[in-house]
């Protein structure tokens, strides 16, 4: 790894429901584990590179609560963060940008309406539009040659689209980054889906963020090297205090992966 290679990013994902932090295990039986603003501040101070908030609030009338969380985070956390969940229009995206989110994440709504990616990209710029893909293994077929299928509704509904084709389509429509979330690996803490991540990362030019399955520092190492990912998303392994962000970065650095090391600054 030379100096010409960007640092690999460690990104923490916070699931938010009704303004509170939750972490899903296989997307069912979510458990409240605290205040998202407090957690965001803790990770920011601990040297995290970026944050992702997924709003898993069921009802659409609770959108205001999420905007409030975003504004509070933006007032204290000075690293990029993105927000996903329930973004169905350019207006949703613009409101989140104005509230302080650097990027927005689109997922199911983009599967149903792919032009949403293009509209958001034109309105707020490709660098601020992240396409999040939920992916499940399946038997390879003519329509799903890779054996990885796009699913929606938290993994319950397959849509008959190949994940690799969808990644390329998302890039073409103007997504500036992709999150590849393996539903099979999500919540298992047994490691990322390396093969899937690598297939996607090799198929597109935009940065790829691996998601789902992180449980040990080795898992991050694997997906950032063998998996060709530009960034690794972590959740429960840091939320429950098993590892700090700094420990993960020190581990990665000891294995030769270039990461940003935080240092004390007096301002």
């Amino acid at each position, binding site marked *: 790894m030379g*100096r*010409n*290679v*960007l*640092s690999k*990013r460690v990104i923490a994902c916070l699931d938010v429901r009704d303004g509170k932090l939750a972490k899903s295990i296989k997307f069912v039986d979510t458990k409240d584990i605290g205040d998202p603003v407090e957690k965001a501040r803790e990770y*920011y101070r601990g040297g995290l*590179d970026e944050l992702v908030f997924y709003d898993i609030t069921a009802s659409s009338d609770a959108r205001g609560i999420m905007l409030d969380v975003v504004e509070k985070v*933006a*007032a*204290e956390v*000075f*690293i*990029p963060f993105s927000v996903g969940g329930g973004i169905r229009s350019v207006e949703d995206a613009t409101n989140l*940008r*104005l509230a*302080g989110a*650097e990027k927005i994440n689109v997922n199911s709504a983009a599967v149903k309406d792919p032009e949403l990616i293009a509209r958001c990209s034109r309105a*707020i*710029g*490709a*660098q*601020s539009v992240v396409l999040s893909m939920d992916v499940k293994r399946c038997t390879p077929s003519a329509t799903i040659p890779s054996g990885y299928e796009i699913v929606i509704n938290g993994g319950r509904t397959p849509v008959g689209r190949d994940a690799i084709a969808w990644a390329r389509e998302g890039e073409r429509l103007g997504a*500036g*980054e992709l999150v590849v979330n393996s539903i099979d690996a999500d919540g298992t803490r047994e490691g990322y889906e390396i093969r899937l991540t690598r297939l996607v990362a090799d198929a597109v*030019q*935009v*940065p790829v963020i691996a998601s789902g399955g992180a449980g040990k520092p080795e898992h991050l190492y694997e997906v950032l090297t063998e998996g060709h990912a*530009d*960034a690794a998303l972590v959740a429960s392994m840091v939320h429950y205090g098993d590892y700090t962000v700094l420990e993960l970065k020190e581990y990665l650095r000891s294995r030769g992966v270039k990461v*940003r*090391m*935080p*240092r004390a*600054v007096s*301002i």
Partner: protein
Amino acid sequence: MITIVDYNAGNLRSVKRACDAVGIDSKITEDADAVVKAGRIIFPGVGAAESAMETVKSRGLDDALREAVRRGTPVLGICIGAQIILDRSEEGDVACLGLIPGNTVRFKLRDPRLKVPHIGWNEVRVEKPHPLLAGFEPGDELYFVHSYYPSPRDPERVYATSDYGGAFCCALGQGNLFATQFHPEKSGPIGLGVLQRFSRWDGTC
């Protein structure tokens, strides 16, 4: 008081919030007259040079900024604000403010692993001391999101570089004008330090 220039650039409020967090008074304005009279100016930006220049001109902010720089007002440009202070930008091949001789150019990368836009944390190397970069240490990384970068004609105008398929200028300055391609408002405590030093900078270097 810092005057943040509003020309529909995406990161206005982020810059304001960062100023708030470190206790710097700031206000956002699109009024050319307020810019001319400002004591200190941040000229931020995210987006495209072409549409940025259109809005800057339609609000008379081009002449206002030129006048402020001429008067010796400390000015800090960020991202697009660091690009359109040069003569021209390759993005849309548009004429810019011409405050520092040179052009804004696109990354031309041979290594297929390197992607454009350049998004993420990258090491910033101070090439020449400047009061606004006073707290920087070797190895410090700041946050970037861009496809183009400023390329001043006179190498003396370059205060810091970063590497992405080769060295590129990521901080430039001339007298009371300073500008960064990285985002101090999204680069953690090291970035906030730039804003704080700017709030006390007398415009000399």
